[in-house]
């Protein structure tokens, strides 16, 4: 693995970055989907009447219990069985997004439960509806408290995007394998480069979340983590 081999990776960088962009797109899709569904599932688990709350718990149990690669296959080939054509990209976003929502739901659920009941009572006493109390009093606090745990989930799913390789999405690791097929001496430098790209992305993402955390910090909320 001399300098010469490394030099041969440089011309391939555009292809790798092109692949990485797909990973970032999957990430943005899955984490947004996971956020919306995760918040919903957490709210249902905490506030909805028993049967609905139970369904939400069953949902998170399923998506936390099935291996990600199996979820990818289930979504990609499953839809196909029912005659619904979806792209491998969309299947990846959905499978990984629903999986992430189950983990995110756990983060939000814990945060929701940590908001003192007295504040909800005070909101109701002002004349706010139950939904109003959740929206204006509980959620803004719970989401702030969730940020630390959420940055963990972010780091985790960022790397999970490479699993989309398994259903044929041409993301960065698949690009790497294409390049590698043309010249096997590039194997190690290629994958080291991919590793480096993810290290940078993880750092940048967590830096951004850290900034958000600082901006959203409120005295009295940060100490309860």
């Amino acid at each position, binding site marked *: 693995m001399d300098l010469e081999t490394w030099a041969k990776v440089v011309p391939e960088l555009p292809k790798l970055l092109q692949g990485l962009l797909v990973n970032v797109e999957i990430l943005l899709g899955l984490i947004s989907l996971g956020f919306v569904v995760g918040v919903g599932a957490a709210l249902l688990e905490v506030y909805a009447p028993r049967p609905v709350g139970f369904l939400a718990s069953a949902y998170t149990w399923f998506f936390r219990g099935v291996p990600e690669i199996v979820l990818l296959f289930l979504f990609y080939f499953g839809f196909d069985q029912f005659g619904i054509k979806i792209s491998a990209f969309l299947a990846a976003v959905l499978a990984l997004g629903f999986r992430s929502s189950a983990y995110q739901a756990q983060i939000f659920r814990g945060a929701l439960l940590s908001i003192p009941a007295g504040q909800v009572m*005070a909101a109701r006493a002002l004349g*706010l509806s139950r939904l109003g109390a959740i929206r204006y009093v509980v959620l803004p*606090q719970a989401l*702030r408290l969730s940020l630390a745990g959420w940055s963990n989930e972010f780091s985790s799913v960022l790397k999970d995007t490479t699993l989309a390789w398994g259903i044929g999405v041409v993301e960065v690791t698949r690009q790497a394998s294409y390049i590698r097929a043309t010249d096997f001496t590039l194997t190690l430098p290629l994958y080291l480069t991919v590793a480096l790209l993810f290290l940078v992305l993880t750092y940048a993402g967590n830096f951004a979340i850290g900034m958000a955390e600082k901006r959203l910090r*409120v005295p009295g909320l940060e100490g309860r983590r």
Partner: protein
Amino acid sequence: MPLLRVEDLHKRYGHEEVLKGVSLTLEPGETKVVIGPSGTGKSTLLRCINRLTEPDRGRVWLGDLEVTARGADLNKIRAQIGFVFQDFNLFTHLTALDNVRLGLLKVRRMGRREATERAMAELERVGLKAKASAYPAQLSGGQQQRVSIARALAMDPKLILFDEPTSALDPELIGEVLSVMIELAREGMTMIVVTHEMGFARSVADEIVFMEGGVIVEQGPPEVLFRSPKVPRTGEFLRKISELYGEAG
């Protein structure tokens, strides 16, 4: 017409009957102080009035509006009844100003500018205009309770229910909260105050209500209750509580 009418309220938690038929009326501008040993249903009574706790039996009227009616618009009713909690229950993520403003914006649907002006005026009324941008965690207990009083006042309530408003405070912070409440009583605010502060009860209560075991044992003007209670137990409790909490009145 009385401003508030409570008729035969009952509430049971499991085997324990906390309220065993409580009735009272409140005229506009009246201040009633509810006293009694802990666990005798005073807080439950207040919470049943705006149905933060659902009473098992009995009826409540706010003016000619029945609060306990089936299908009563509870959010609308609660917006007219201020509630001040023992442990303040300020919204942690909001500044003092936003705590006071939330109800105006989201319940009263007031415009932003008007709501801000109103909230600032209420903060000034409790002497905390300078703390408008402070978060609850940056305020002392006494200041937090005054913000929570401003939050209740901003809604223009017909009456305010105070649930042991000074019980969670350090002794040196009680005075600032009591003086705000005394001022309110003098201005003619209608209020029910659950408290052990006998000095406050003596100086501002139109009537003192002594509760024990889920019922009202005796009620009457402070001078009557303090000097010549009809029920011996009332005198006994008043003496004990006065010894314990001092008697500033």
